[in-house]
């Protein structure tokens, strides 16, 4: 009984809370580790697909972390990558089917990028670096944390790119027609992939000028 009490206390101990908090800022998968950039450029032209993509990745990385963490002592080291890929692929297929069943239009917009979650570096990185060496609960928290770290960047990119590139948010018109009549026009550059790269660069710039310990030495 007392042992269980102790376990329960430590569920959200400072160390565990860090697993969620750090990936949001100083260990962010996109802006600090620079992983998963490809999908961040591809799916963020609109807010809605960006949000769905972020959610899918968060779910997949959290569950995959738990599964691999449970299997970690039984996986032969020489074929661990293959095992990880199999687990991730199974989860991605599940997510893909769910998306097709419930949000078919978004699923069509995301097209190949849901399938490409399998090759997303964030997943392989977390599985290799964390889940293979930790218990299921911290692995789960680590997955959620990294998923959220990925998510907020995607949602921020989707917000700015849709608002200024299309004048809409979540498909609803935000910038009124009178603006366009007064001479305003949408920024076509924001729809193109390089704009996402510039926006990510801007986030990195702001983050590193606020926290100088993130600046690499060379």
């Amino acid at each position, binding site marked *: 009984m007392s042992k269980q009490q102790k376990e329960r206390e430590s569920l959200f101990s400072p160390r565990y809370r860090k697993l969620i908090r750090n990936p949001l800022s100083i260990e962010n998968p996109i802006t600090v580790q620079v992983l998963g950039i490809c999908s961040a450029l591809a799916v963020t032209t609109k807010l809605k697909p960006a949000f769905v993509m972020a959610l899918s990745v968060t779910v997949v990385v959290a569950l995959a972390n738990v599964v691999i963490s449970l299997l970690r002592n039984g996986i032969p080291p020489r074929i661990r990558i293959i095992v990880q890929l199999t687990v991730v692929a199974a989860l991605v297929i599940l997510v893909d089917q769910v998306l097709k069943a419930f949000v078919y239009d978004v699923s069509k917009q995301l097209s190949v990028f849901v399938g490409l979650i399998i090759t997303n570096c964030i997943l392989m990185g977390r599985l290799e670096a964390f889940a293979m060496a930790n218990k299921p609960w911290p692995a789960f928290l680590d997955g959620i944390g990294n998923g959220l770290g990925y998510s907020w960047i995607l949602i921020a990119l989707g917000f700015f790119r849709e608002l200024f590139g299309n004048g809409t948010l979540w498909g609803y018109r935000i910038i009124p027609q009178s603006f366009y009549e007064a*001479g*305003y026009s949408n*920024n*076509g*550059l924001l729809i193109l992939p390089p704009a996402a790269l510039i926006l990510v*660069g801007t986030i990195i710039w702001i983050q590193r000028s606020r926290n100088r310990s993130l600046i690499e030495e060379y």
Partner: protein
Amino acid sequence: MKGGRFEKLHSTFDAFETFLFVPDKVTFKGSHIRDSIDLKRTMSTVIVALLPALLFGIYNVGYQHYISYGEHPGFWQIVGYGLQKVLPLIVVSYGVGLGIEFIFAQYRGHEVNEGYLVTGMLIPLILPPDIPLWIVALSVAFAVIFGKEVFGGTGMNVLNPALLARGFLFFAYPAAMTGDKVWIAGKADAYSGETVLGHAMIGNSDQINDPMGMFIGLEPGSIGETSVIAILIGAAILLFTGIASWRIMLATMLGATALGLLVNAIGANEYMRLPFYFHFLMGGFAFGLVFMATDPVTSAQTNRGKWIYGVLLGALIIIIRVFNPAYPEGVMLAILLMNVFAPLIDHYVIQANIRYRVKRAKAARVHIVK
């Protein structure tokens, strides 16, 4: 100023104090490549070289406007209309650009330098006259922040900021930068205002059989780049004062000529059969070559590198113009691309030189031993 009440504003004060003047702090001794002509004087010379193109541009904006209505008013009325269109562009360009430069310099404790004086004049000259001012402000802000300040300010930029501003506009607001609607300020509706390049693109070769007209430059186009004569005057000033590199200019002409001749020889379509020397007169070739490609910061630094840079640049301009139907104007994209490659070219030129010298030193040593 040190320790005074306004010490924080030192860089702002210093910028105004030495504005366009040669400061007292010149070098008297020293072995390196410094001399008493500093950055400020260099930049002011470029501005002077830009003046002919600017003045002609102002006249041409007015001239094109009245021509489209079939009117022929007096000289001063034409200039007046041109001023009314061009001056706001210059004011916005300088206001926004210098504002951002001052803020960054102040924040980082640098001195404000004259890098932006030239950029701020170049930007209005490469824009169509009818462009909305807020778009100009946005592109200037983009170019200064992402082209220069991110890399550490004047002298550290990889890309030419003025061209970056135009590139931003070109991709962000294509409607304001292409087509036949934008090149004549306040034009009459029934009048076709395509640029010469636009005509060439759609195969209207009867519209472009006037090399003399393109040389003088009374034609629709970006404000400062229509008149080859005005640009040549500027080029002469830059070459005479030794500020622009003749190597780059010559090499670019050679590269463009070589590829232009090759394309002529193939001659598969109307645009390919266009005589190669027309490319020198059309669009932004002359302007880009004289004022943008020779930018000492973003072009190659080594002499051999300048030759390579120039030849590749000339070839690229013709390739983009002739083979890419989406971009009638290749000069901007070609220069931006070569800006990116310039450090690489320099690196290999320097490495080759090092290898050559090591080899020579070894040979000399063998000789002595024998």
